[in-house]
């Protein structure tokens, strides 16, 4: 597992992205293992319902697997016209921050 503050700063091809309606999310975590490239992980923070919510890392393929398994209709999926390269970390690392980059 990558060490905090010492991340592997690799670039990964990212072909799509998702929108998350994080207020609807009930934190069931079903989307996490559903994501084939494993670019989803649960947040440390909680929404106003008290649930942790998924966060997206670089490398989304826009495959919709997360959307398909989400019971709460929290996810919308986009595919980019052109793939982009984005910085990535190991998504299996637990926890998250609240700093974000615009995809």
């Amino acid at each position: 597992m990558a060490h905090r503050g010492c991340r592997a700063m690799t670039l990964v091809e990212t072909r799509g992205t998702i929108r998350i309606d994080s207020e609807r999310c009930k934190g069931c975590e079903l989307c996490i293992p559903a994501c084939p490239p494993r670019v989803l992980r649960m947040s440390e923070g909680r929404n106003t319902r008290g649930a942790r919510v998924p966060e997206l890392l670089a490398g989304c393929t826009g495959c919709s697997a997360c959307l398909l398994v989400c019971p709460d209709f929290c996810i919308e999926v986009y595919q980019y016209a052109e793939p982009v390269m984005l910085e990535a970390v190991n998504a299996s690392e637990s926890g998250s921050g609240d700093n974000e980059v615009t995809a």
Partner: protein
Amino acid sequence: MSSDRLDVLDTHGRPTRVSTRVGEFEPKLLLDGEHDLCPGCGEPVAIRLLLEVIEELGYAQDSIGVIGIGCYTAFTGLIDVDLIQALHGRAPSVATGAKRMRPDKLLFTLQGDGDMVNEGLQEVIHTAARGESVTCVLLNNGVFGETGGHMTATTALGQRTKTSLEGRDADYHGYPIPIAELLVPLGGVSYVARGSVADAKSVVRTKAMLRKAFEAQIAGEGFSLVEILTMCPTGWFIPTADGPGYLDEVLGEVHAAGELVVGGKPVGKGASG
């Protein structure tokens, strides 16, 4: 929280890059995606598929649904299709009456295992044998979710429920009823399949089953049924994230996914859909 985490992407708004939306939050035929079912429940996932298929077949304005009584009943207020709320167990007969008066409409039921395999078992069997041109959709989680997770007639051996906390034991509780298999010997049946929503691949396959079932109805081939295994972490007394795995290992063991009847002909047991 640590300030060095720059890797999380913004998922609040629409993407700013040129992109195509390939999946929407909620199906078009839902008035509101906000519902009160438990975290990790499999039922809303199955309902999404049902509504998408109706929409995609072009039957949004030509469908009538009949809803049973279980947790999914909460969707009666949310689904944007003409609906009839049936009593617990009675949906197949209600669908029969409606179909006979509106033979040009797509008629489906939405029922749970408690509804279909306990309270109203004979309704679905009689409707199938009559070759009624309706499609029954079963959300099978092996429990009465709504009343708090009691054992049903489909509860798998070993499955944990409120009335079988140690797991269902055949000697004490009897055996589960494999409802899809039960329908196979009946003459009036055109399509029977069992899917699941435990993972994305199953979800996709299940959607194809729903489509085939409706197509059989539209073609006037007779009765069709799609059984969908759904997670009920609440009634199974497990963490939400364990739902899909538990489903595959416990429910999936007894109720194997696959198509059972296609075009009115039985296909190999457990054949893949």
